[in-house]
């Protein structure tokens, strides 16, 4: 039996195909762009291709992410809050705290010993604390975002970006550049600023698992998080595709769909574990 999950995110769409044992058979990441439905189609097709399986062989595919309603071929949906938690809890037993940093939002999800989500926090309506903040800073520094992590590795001077606001942080950055500060130190300051926003969202105690595109492409974030918390931060396999992986697990487990992608919302609160058929 084969299952799939599609995470329609603000920046990227991710797809994962798994077998009944939750072994990952294929993954894909494509830009979401303005055509969310098209990106989901393309991403899913690519993941299937990499998994070497046909659409017909997939028993169920579930959607997640802010564009989950746009994934027309999905059999069900769950929020990214559920899917990141579900995916992380597959690799790391609870109780745990999942820190997911995406392009548009950041989430802190608490999972209990039974693997159940007990609470969540999301960032306020603000780019600070999300991947968009790093994009803005990379733009100001004139470096491609994919080079920012390597740039920060050369940091020697501990600088602070104290502003709460992405726009003001950009202005602050210009002041520091005018003051002759090195780009490497400024890049590291941006990461540190992001980490400070994350640790202020909730009490990050116990076992912490980090997921999301920012974690996948900016390893510096993980070491800074660990340093700030004075604890180990675990990064599971395929952190960027964790939401899609969680959606594939939901498809496999037949989790109750309360989302609008379910065929009949009024009967969609089926018990967990019940087979979910379209």
């Amino acid at each position, binding site marked *: 039996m084969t299952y799939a999950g599609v995470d329609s995110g603000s920046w990227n769409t991710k797809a994962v195909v798994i077998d009944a044992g939750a072994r990952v058979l294929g993954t894909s990441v494509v830009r979401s762009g303005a055509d969310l439905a098209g990106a989901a189609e393309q991403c899913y097709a690519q993941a299937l291709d990499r998994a070497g399986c046909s659409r017909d062989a997939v028993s169920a595919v579930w959607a997640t992410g802010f564009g989950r309603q746009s994934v027309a071929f999905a059999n069900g949906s769950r929020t990214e809050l559920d899917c990141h938690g579900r995916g992380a809890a597959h690799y790391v037993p609870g109780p745990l705290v999942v820190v997911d940093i995406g392009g548009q939002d950041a989430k802190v999800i608490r999972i209990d010993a039974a693997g159940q*989500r007990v609470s969540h926090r999301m960032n306020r309506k603000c780019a600070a604390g999300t991947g968009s903040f790093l994009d803005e800073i990379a733009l100001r520094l004139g470096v491609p975002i994919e080079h920012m992590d390597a740039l920060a590795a050369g940091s020697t001077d501990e600088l602070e970006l104290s502003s709460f606001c992405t726009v003001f942080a950009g202005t602050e950055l210009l002041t520091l550049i005018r003051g002759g500060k090195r780009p490497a130190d400024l890049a590291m300051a941006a990461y540190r600023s992001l980490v400070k926003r994350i640790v202020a969202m909730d009490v990050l105690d116990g076992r912490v698992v980090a997921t999301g595109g920012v974690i996948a492409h900016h390893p510096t974030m993980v070491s800074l998080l660990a340093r700030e918390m004075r604890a180990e931060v675990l990064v599971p396999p395929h952190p960027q595709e964790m939401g899609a992986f969680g959606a594939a697990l939901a498809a496999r487990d037949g989790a*109750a769909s309360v989302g609008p992608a379910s065929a009949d919302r009024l009967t969609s609160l089926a018990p967990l574990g019940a087979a979910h058929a379209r």
Partner: protein
Amino acid sequence: MTAFDATSTLKATMDRYYRDLGAAAERGTAPVAWCTSVGPAELLRALGFRVFFPENHAAMLGAARTANRYMPLAHAHGYSQDICSYLTSDVGAYLAGESPLSAYGLQGTPRADVLVFNTNQCRDVRDWFEWYGRAWNVPVVGVRSPRSLEAVTDDDVEAIARQIERLVPTLEAVAGTRLDAPRLEHAVRVSRECSDLWELCLRTAAHEPAPLTFFDGTVHMGPAVVLRGAEEACAYYRVLLQELEQRARENVAAVQGEAFRLYWDGMPIWGRLRSLSTLFAEFRTSVVASTYCNSWIFSALDPADPIRSMARASLELFIGRSEEAKEDYIARMTELYRVDGIVYHDCRTCPNNTNTRYGMPGRLADRTGIPALVLDGDVNDMRCVSDEQARTNVEGFIEQLADARHLARSARV
């Protein structure tokens, strides 16, 4: 939103109120007083004033989603976007010379002969009234209330009662009449009756399934807000109560297939009232009760002791109480209405009616075992609202409740 037969009576009641107010303000048929929502409305009615509640006007701007059109005008006059968006949208609408009250034949915001505030809610109401006082060169008087009260003591009540009494000479001068004790007792008696009837209407939502939601309540509370102390409000709530009780008897649910019941704390998000109502209903979730709608229940009012009971009622108001008193209150409500979760609205521009910023959601979740969700938003400023984030937050919360319920059922099997 639920369709009630009583809605036609509601519309007629509100229509008469606004037209009567318009006649007073524009044709001088009676003196006009502005009053904050828990100001001394009964005193004003007893003196023959037509009473206007600008918070109701601001809520109309929010619900009509025109507030953001007007707020920048107030910001430009030095009223920050970080202060009460009721104030900035109302003042902005005045500066624009526009008002939703034109639908009731008024030319604009009704001009006041006197403005009467009570700071039991916040300081912003006073600043709001003083803006108009300066614009119209009319008196602004009010009650300065203590806040964060653990318990309401007799000393607190006496102090506020003295302040209310000191308003009387100014109000008599503006009204051109003397305060008549029987008229005040009557106003307080009618106000208490309105409060009791409104409370009974809201309490019908303790029934499972609930016959009305918080979202319905924010619409049907209109007469309790603007006609407190007037017979018309009582007449309306008798009609509404009859319908709600019948619906409860017949198990007519406001939300079809009610699966989850929630409590709402904090201000409504007026510009998203309908969409949030629809969103919760999509997930078979009924928001059955709220601090906000309950805030127009004034059980302390007593016609035998009008001034002191008005003082006590204004001090017992939830918004003016300590964190501990507020937590006790919400805990009682969650038991009364048997809710599965609490939604807290973190209202960007209304810190006084936001209870998320000093740790309350976590403390109450620990105390009651009832999970909490915090929604970021605003009462009128829709720039502070993210629809996508609100949807994910709500949907994720219902997923959590559904999973917990399933787990509990599985454990019992």
